[in-house]
């Protein structure tokens, strides 16, 4: 059973460095499309992965795209130098990306983010313009509807 807000809260509690991107970032900006997972951009440093491991402790995180569904392990994953982690946990799917197509690496993504204040703590979220750029760069059918909504939100926010 998904509990995406708890997943985010755990990231905050363990001080994982991340920027929320993807569908849930679009939801935070106001897109009324349901999303089932969390996508974050994060620096794939050993320290940050250790924080992530603590945040996911007890949630049985596994690499969902490996046939054996290998357990998430900082020691093994850091050594393998993975750029992205596609994880499944007991409370939701979490995709951790080292870079975002159309934007760049974590520092650039962070530069183009805003902070959303929530009861679970402050969440850094990709800003509206960057989210539009990222969705455009992906050019996937599933993103087109979100893109239309995001552009509409941008239009409404832009002073006439």
């Amino acid at each position: 059973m998904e509990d995406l807000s708890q997943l985010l809260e755990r990231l905050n509690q363990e001080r994982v460095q991340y920027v929320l991107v993807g569908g849930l970032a679009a939801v935070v900006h106001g897109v009324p499309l349901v999303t089932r997972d969390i996508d974050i951009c994060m620096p794939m440093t050993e320290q940050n992965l250790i924080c992530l491991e603590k945040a996911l402790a007890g949630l049985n995180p596994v690499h969902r795209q490996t046939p054996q569904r290998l357990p998430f392990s900082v020691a093994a994953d850091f050594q393998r130098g993975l750029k992205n982690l596609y994880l499944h946990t007991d409370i939701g799917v979490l995709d951790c990306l080292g870079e975002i197509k159309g934007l760049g690496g974590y520092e650039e993504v962070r530069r183009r983010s805003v902070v959303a204040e929530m009861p679970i703590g402050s969440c850094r979220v990709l800003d509206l313009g960057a989210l539009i750029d990222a969705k455009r760069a992906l050019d996937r059918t599933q993103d087109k509807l979100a893109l239309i909504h995001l552009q509409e939100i941008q239009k409404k926010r832009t002073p006439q």
Partner: protein
Amino acid sequence: MSDPIRDSENILSDASFEPVGVDGSSSADIDLSLLEDSLRLTPWQRLIENERALALVRMLERAKIREDGRS
């Protein structure tokens, strides 16, 4: 406890804007009333609405599986 990422940052904490109605909008392909409703909410409320909708989807999926299993 102070939060270092909040210092002098662009903060997204309130509803995005006061909805102005759907008249004159050019995006005929989407239901703008849903968008207007969503924009009245705070980011946190939007997150919670997503989880509620997701729970409903899951419930319907489980119901469908039970129905399929019966037929």
